[in-house]
């Protein structure tokens, strides 16, 4: 595709509910990153995929967060038993290089946990 597509654009979840956020990177992009952005803050790294391999998941805040990219293209970030502190914008970015030069970001999914 022409850009990185994320869905849904907005998600309201009740506390305790499981959610799944989808990222469609630019076709052929090797690197895929997930970031979490709280209101008024910069994005914080969650996890990194190189093709289907999850090479770094050091930023995932707890074991309630899980990400996958099984075929090296579409990625899903899953949050189990959502809490209010999970409310944030979740950004996906992809890059054509394995080093991740110059990310292309999606517009994000705004998650609100009530």
């Amino acid at each position: 595709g022409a850009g990185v597509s994320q869905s849904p654009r907005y998600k309201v979840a009740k506390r305790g509910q499981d959610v799944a956020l989808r990222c469609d990177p630019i076709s052929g992009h090797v690197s895929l990153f997930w970031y979490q952005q709280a209101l008024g803050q910069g994005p914080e790294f969650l996890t990194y995929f190189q093709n289907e391999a999850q090479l770094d998941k050091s930023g995932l805040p707890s074991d309630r967060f899980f990400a996958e990219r099984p075929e090296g293209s579409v990625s899903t970030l899953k949050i189990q038993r959502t809490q209010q502190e999970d409310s944030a914008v979740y950004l996906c970015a992809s890059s054509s290089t394995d080093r991740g030069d110059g990310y292309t970001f999606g517009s994000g999914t705004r998650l609100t946990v009530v």
Partner: protein
Amino acid sequence: SQQGEEDPQALSIQEGENATMNCSYKTSINNLQWYRQNSGRGLVHLILIRSNEREKHSGRLRVTLDTSKKSSSLLITASRAADTASYFCAPAPSFSGGYNKLIFGAGTRLAVHP
């Protein structure tokens, strides 16, 4: 913290003026990237400067890098109202396993008034 830290936190100028934003970081880097974020949108990659480069230009943007001082600056010349956005520097630490694990600061909020 490994993150880039932008200064000032907020900047308000008139159209036609130049805007300068500064960034400091703490670790050795492979490169440093600057991104722009309009309200409620994803981040847009502006420019990447490698650790062996000192200055780079792209249109009305000029980026400098001083690795001895661990600092960078972004200059926007002849600013326009459309430049109103948050600007983030993102250093890519050289220890991050061969890929650009960008670490974002809180950003500089630039307001350009007509």
